[in-house]
């Protein structure tokens, strides 16, 4: 019913003081699928997200959504092209109410106020946050803050959602809830999700495909069960035995 969009990154590179944080990474996501981006600490995942969302300037590479070149844009120009993100350390507008937080997501992509409010109301309802709609975001529980951040991202009606460690700080039960929420989202909303997380239980079960980084380079790609058995991935995570 809805068209398929494609988010494509090719040859993305970035180095800090000579150190290659992201090194020639390419990736492609379609709406309706969930791609997991994993790798050991310091492998360049967060840098990757910062690059594609315009928070950092890339050294080289091309980033497009359906032919729109978003790679040269400022961070604030990107959401309107259908790409939004969340943060590992939750970044909410702590003095704004839950409703306002979500509305911002919609206002940010140019929606009118009335429409934004309606969208926000619906999303709060959907994520079970309606009761807290007028409470300042900083008073919410950690779980609710996570959900609220996702709601804010969804309010922009994105085609692609980048989740940076959404399960960090959640307990097992909450992670299960998150899984339930995310697993149906691609189809329901026809969006593509790129998720970075360390919770392998979540990643392995949620993702259609995985993309593994180490030292900023792609070391593996493919179905979760394949990636898991990939010796290079295991070495990246656990280290090699001493030679």
């Amino acid at each position: 019913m809805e068209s398929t969009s494609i988010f494509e990154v090719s040859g993305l590179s970035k180095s800090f003081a000579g150190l290659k944080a992201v090194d020639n990474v390419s990736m492609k996501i379609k709406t309706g699928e969930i791609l997991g981006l994993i790798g050991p600490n310091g492998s360049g995942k967060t840098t990757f997200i910062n690059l594609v969302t315009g928070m950092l300037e890339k050294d080289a590479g091309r980033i497009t959504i359906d032919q729109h070149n978003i790679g040269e844009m400022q961070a604030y120009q990107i959401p309107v092209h259908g790409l939004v993100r969340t943060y590992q350390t939750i970044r909410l507008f702590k003095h704004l109410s839950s409703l306002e937080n979500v509305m911002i997501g919609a206002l940010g992509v140019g929606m009118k106020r009335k429409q934004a409010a309606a969208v926000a109301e619906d999303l709060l309802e959907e994520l079970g946050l309606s009761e807290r709609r007028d409470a300042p975001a900083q008073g919410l529980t950690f779980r609710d803050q996570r959900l609220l951040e996702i709601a804010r991202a969804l309010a922009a009606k994105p085609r692609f959602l980048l989740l940076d460690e959404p399960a960090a700080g959640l307990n097992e039960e909450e992670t299960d809830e998150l899984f339930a929420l995310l697993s149906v989202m691609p189809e329901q909303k026809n969006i593509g999700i790129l998720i970075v997380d360390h919770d392998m239980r979540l990643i392995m079960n949620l993702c259609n495909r995985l993309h593994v980084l180490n030292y900023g380079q792609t070391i593996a790609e493919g179905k979760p069960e394949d990636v898991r058995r990939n010796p290079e991935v295991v070495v990246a995570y656990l280290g090699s035995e001493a030679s």
Partner: protein
Amino acid sequence: MKRNNTADENTLAAASLGSRPYFNFSSKWSTVVLLVAILSGIGVFIWWLNIPFIEDIFTSSVITLISVLGFQLYMGNSGILNWSYVGYVGIGAFASAIFSMEPSLKAMQIPIMYPFLQKLHLPFIPAVLAGALVAMIIAAVVAWPLMRLSDAVGSITQFALLIVINVLLSQWAEVTNGPRTFTLGGSRQTTIWVALGFAILVITFVYYFKESSLGMKLRTSRDDRYAARSSGINFVKVRYQGYVTSAFIGGLAGGLYSHYILSITAGSFYMSELFKLLSMVVIGGSMSVSGAFFGALIVTLAQQGLRQLELGLTRSGFEAYGMSEIVVAILMILFLILRPNGVTGGRELSLEALRNLFRPKQYTNNNGNKK
């Protein structure tokens, strides 16, 4: 619950309390109504008292209130202290004075004034508005490159800007009569009613601004500018818009002030004025319009009280001149330490807040739906 989305922001904001039938009109806009009611109440009472000097104090406090509201509009929503703000108040004051003064009077008082300025002549209210516009345009011109700076650098540049404005106001003799007093001819035009009228407009506007999408966007840049950016908000742009708007209100306050006091110098729009505004906002609570309102109220009362005290003490042989500033400064530091969000704690005065005041506190972290 299906909601009717044709309602404007008022009802929208109030809808949280869907389960509270007796209060369907906006809980949020009650803030404006309450503040305006308090202010006009005091105004009418003072008018009824008919003591000229109290009326004067009130009028000048109302002008200060307008100034504080403009200051809060930017500081409260963007979280950035605008050190140069009083400079715009000064620009507004001088510009409107130049606009409204009789050309012949200008020629007599400031013979070296540029001829095109001497020729300008506008009636009072248009002159004040034009003065505010001048302040706004100057802000619009100088501020753009400064807006992307933040934190320490931002503060420093704004502070430097204030000094530049002050030097220009105090030295540009062809415009402002230089370091000497600029005296407006004629009688006082900013009466108690004019001031009150503008104050009511400005309270409403500042509150509206806060709740508008621009205000909301500005507030996001205060809370987290990274998240704001990734939510599609160009925080440099919204800051700029907020800054310029605030300069307009500052200029407005300046124009009302010059037509109230009738003799102005650049020194009136410098450190001690900035300090006064700052103390009001800090004591009242910078994040809410009510905070600026009550801050202005408290500091004005304290200063007037202290001035009487100064007088009393001095008459009894103890020189106490300058004490009021010291007390206000200490008060401000105490507030910063003990209650950084001021008396209002960053909240707005509203009917609901009033109700809560008279209700035992029973909620700890759940203030969404308490009984």
